């Protein structure tokens, strides 16, 4: 085997950079690199290092460029960072630009079979004889491509000093203990590691080192799995869905964990039904039907699906039916880029459907919140008797995040105002489906099957009286809409409250939402270092409440930071608080990538 030594002149030993750099792995999708990348991130996590990953994959199945970006941050910043210090090049199609993209002083690990366009003097190159190593490993032909990806893991393990024990543990975890693939992959990884040890003089500065203080009590999980678990722990009993990236893995998670969590021990049957619908219109109709019948029902979709559901959601809103709609946002308009992230459906979801409609929306920022909001959403749907939206995004939903462990939901489920046969009896059968008995805009409902002659009512999307009878009378129409507005106001203080972090003396307020959280915190830290103090409010739901108003009132300037083009949250805030409109600055960007702290810092510190 050839000996790979540094080919570029290198100024002696440089100071070590420990746990503070970015690794970027460039591969071809469908090649099995997913496994290798997950070993990397998992072992780093288990070493106690704060890490984030951004998987940048194409909207096809196999053969196109993919990048897996891992950020190590000893300070615990989990946002996307643009610079790349450690580049792993395994894809000829992009090798030129990949090599060009590395930060000054960075290193490049690459398959020695790849064509190299230009040799930079400011980076170190490590050529790896991938083909020969694969050959040496004596793999079955059809698995060579997949298992071959272990090579860069092995080489990186040597160069970056990733603990081999953790890699092994990650491998075992990844294959659920199945010996055959574990051993085959381990063998390959070890071969590469050994080769690297024997052949590479490790003079480059980037190192991983076990640390404590951050990852304890935390888990590594993606937002969609968290949401799926949240649904299972909060009584979901009907899921109607239609596959669409990046939401499918949420339904997958439910299907994966249901047998473990929601199986009747006696019969082995499940306590929930999952139906793959023929499209999103049908998915919406199904969950409205199920919600109406009394189930905790939900769907998961993305922008195009939300658009298709528009008519049905108007029905859900107006007929007042509980159901939960997860929108794992990807960038649009239209089909857009199914594998790129954005917070682009805020406005269209808030006002979804014709007529005077506004909807309650929750915005999780972390897997833990996704887990919790899965429960909040059901509680709110049943309490408010209305469709509830949860707007996550591809970044949160599909990337792996370090998250605090989820807390068991102790509070009882809020099943809302449902009258049983006994209740009806006690009332002498007197009730009105849309009667605002309690002044909160919320009526009582009965479930089909309730054995009482007065239980039945007729559900419709047309005009109706408080007693659910058909009406075209102007007063009935207007009163009904006014009640719905009252209900919307009731929602303001029922939804998850914003998270506020105020700094004494700050004149600048930042309002943001969802998965931008990490980038905002990092930007605030950078700004603080630059002498600019900021306060921060993270909206966790719409409609907003008094807390948001008070915060907005307090600061000279409010930056509304979001990952879309049109400043969609800004738009809504301006409308809710027109008196403060002039001081709210829309700070938005939308190119398919999660926001970076650098960009946010620049916007505020101009």
């Amino acid at each position, binding site marked *: 085997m050839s000996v790979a030594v540094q080919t570029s002149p290198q100024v002696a030993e440089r100071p070590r950079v420990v746990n503070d750099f970015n690794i970027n792995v460039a591969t071809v999708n469908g090649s099995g690199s997913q496994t290798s990348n997950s070993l990397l991130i998992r072992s780093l996590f288990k070493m106690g290092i704060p890490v984030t990953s951004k998987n940048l994959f194409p909207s096809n199945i196999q053969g196109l460029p993919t990048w897996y970006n891992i950020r190590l941050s000893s300070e615990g910043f989990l946002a996307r960072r643009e610079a790349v210090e450690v580049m792993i090049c395994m894809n000829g199609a992009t090798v030129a630009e990949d090599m060009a993209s590395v930060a000054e002083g960075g290193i490049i690990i690459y398959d020695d079979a790849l064509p190299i366009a230009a040799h930079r003097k400011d980076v170190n190159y490590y050529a790896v004889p991938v083909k020969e190593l694969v050959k040496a490993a004596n793999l079955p032909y059809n698995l060579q491509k997949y298992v071959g990806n272990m090579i860069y893991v092995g080489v990186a393990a040597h160069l970056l000093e990733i603990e081999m024990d953790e890699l092994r543990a990650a491998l075992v*975890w990844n294959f659920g203990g199945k010996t055959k693939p574990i051993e085959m992959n381990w063998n390959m990884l070890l071969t590469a590691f050994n080769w690297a040890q024997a052949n590479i003089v490790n003079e480059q500065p980037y190192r991983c080192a076990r640390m404590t203080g951050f990852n304890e009590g935390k888990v590594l999980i993606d937002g969609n799995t968290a949401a799926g*678990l949240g649904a299972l*722990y*909060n*009584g979901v*009993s*009907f899921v*109607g869905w239609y596959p669409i990236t990046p939401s499918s893995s949420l339904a997958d998670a439910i299907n994966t*964990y249901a047998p473990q*969590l*929601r199986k*009747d021990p006696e*019969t082995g*049957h*499940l*306590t*929930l*039904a*999952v*139906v793959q*619908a*023929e*499209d999103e*219109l*049908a998915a*919406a*109709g*199904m*969950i*409205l*039907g*199920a*919600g*109406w*019948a*009394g*189930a905790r*029902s939900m769907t998961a979709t993305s922008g195009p699906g939300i658009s298709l559901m528009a008519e*049905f959601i108007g*029905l859900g809103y107006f007929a007042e039916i509980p159901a939960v709609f997860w929108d794992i946002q990807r960038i649009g308009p239209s089909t857009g880029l199914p594998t790129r992230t954005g917070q682009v459906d805020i406005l269209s979801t808030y006002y979804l459907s014709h007529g005077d409609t506004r909807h309650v929306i929750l915005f999780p920022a972390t897997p833990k919140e996704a887990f919790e909001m899965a429960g909040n959403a059901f509680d709110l749907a049943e309490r408010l008797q209305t469709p509830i939206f949860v707007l996550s995004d591809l970044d949160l939903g599909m990337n792996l995040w370090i998250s605090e*462990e*989820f807390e*068991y939901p102790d509070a*009882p*489920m809020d099943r809302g105002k449902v009258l049983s046969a006994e209740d009806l009896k006690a009332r002498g059968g007197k009730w009105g489906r849309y009667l605002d008995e309690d002044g909160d805009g919320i009526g009582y409902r*009965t*479930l*089909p*099957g309730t*054995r*009482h*002659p007065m*239980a*039945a*009512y*007729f*559900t*419709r*999307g047309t005009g109706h009286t408080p007693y659910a009878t*058909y009406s075209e009378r102007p007063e009935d129409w207007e009163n009904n809409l006014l009640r719905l507005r009252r209900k919307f106001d009731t929602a303001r203080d029922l939804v998850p409250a914003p998270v506020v972090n105020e700094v004494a003396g700050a004149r600048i307020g930042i309002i943001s939402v969802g998965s931008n959280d990490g980038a905002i915190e990092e930007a605030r830290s950078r700004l603080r270092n630059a002498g600019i103090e900021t306060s921060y409010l993270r909206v966790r739901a719409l409609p907003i409440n008094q807390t948001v108003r008070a915060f907005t009132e307090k600061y000279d300037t409010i930056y509304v930071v979001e990952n879309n083009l049109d400043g969609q949250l800004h738009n809504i805030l301006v409308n809710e608080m027109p008196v403060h409109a002039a001081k709210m600055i829309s700070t938005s960007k939308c190119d398919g990538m999660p926001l970076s702290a650098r960009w946010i810092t620049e916007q505020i510190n101009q």
Partner: protein
Amino acid sequence: MSSIPENSTPVAGAGAAKARPAAAPKLNIIGLEKTEYKGGNSTLCNGCGHDSISARIINAAWDLGLEQSQVVKFSGIGCSSKTPAYFLGQSHGFNGVHGRMPSVATGALMANRSLHAVGVSGDGDTASIGIGQFKHMVRRNVNMVYIVENNGVYGLTKGQFSATADRGQVLKYAGTNELMPLDICIEALAANATFVARSFAGDAKQLEALLKAAMRHRGLAVLDIISPCVTFNNHEESTKSYAFGKENEIPIHELNFIPSYEEITIDEYDDETEVRLHDGSWLVLKKLGEDYDPTDKMLAYKTLENARTQQKLLTGIFYIEPEKPSLVDLLNIVDTPLVQLPVEQLRPTRASLHEIMATL
């Protein structure tokens, strides 16, 4: 609506039921008068076929002794889809959006498997905007009676062609239809339906027998009922008019429904075929013209295609497959309706969460 609601077993046993006609002609087997099965006042045009069908549904439900609180009604949008407000007033009803009744019904019936469902749609609602959801509901064999009140026209929007309009059909405003119709029954067959029938709103006896059988079928029972729109499509040349129906209806057999609570001895008549339904009821088909075997799918295709091509109004039960599982049977879910599960079955244990967290 596959079986008798649990609590609607005969009040006084089968013998009493048999004696019913003589004893108390105004009460059904669960002791209710027929008027109890009515709904609100109809706002349809005088003489609309849809109102006749509502009357038949009321009769059939009363006759079977359905417990209304265990029945749900679904519909889309259209004159036809309004009718669930006019029958079974003590049943929950859901008047959805245009053409999308199937999905709403599917969700509700999976959430509560003990409900018995009647869905009412129109030809526009089912064959035009709704053909997609219709096909998929048929394919899933969801437990419901799916009634299409078929008048070949959009009534509620005042007289446009629907996809079941005959080729050559003329409408006052819309002109002449040049396209071949979609045939609800053939569409159902193609999508693997387990109960496919056609009837005529003016044929009370046949329709009631079919309704009862449909209510006792396991899976989706498709009833394509020709139901004249007296306002927009009732001229004599229309195959969907009263005049045409009365003159030209050709029943392929005489139908009798015998509920499970009536003891019968099936005689071996040469000209009768019996089909045993899932709940033990019987559908008895008496030969009228040619022999017709309703379990022969190819015969069903042939009969229906010929009728379509020749614009003949054939009625009767074209195809039945009483033993196929319905969607809820395929879902591997518990027997208790999901909406009735106690919180312990809805929320996994604290320990299980710890376990999962430990693996992450």
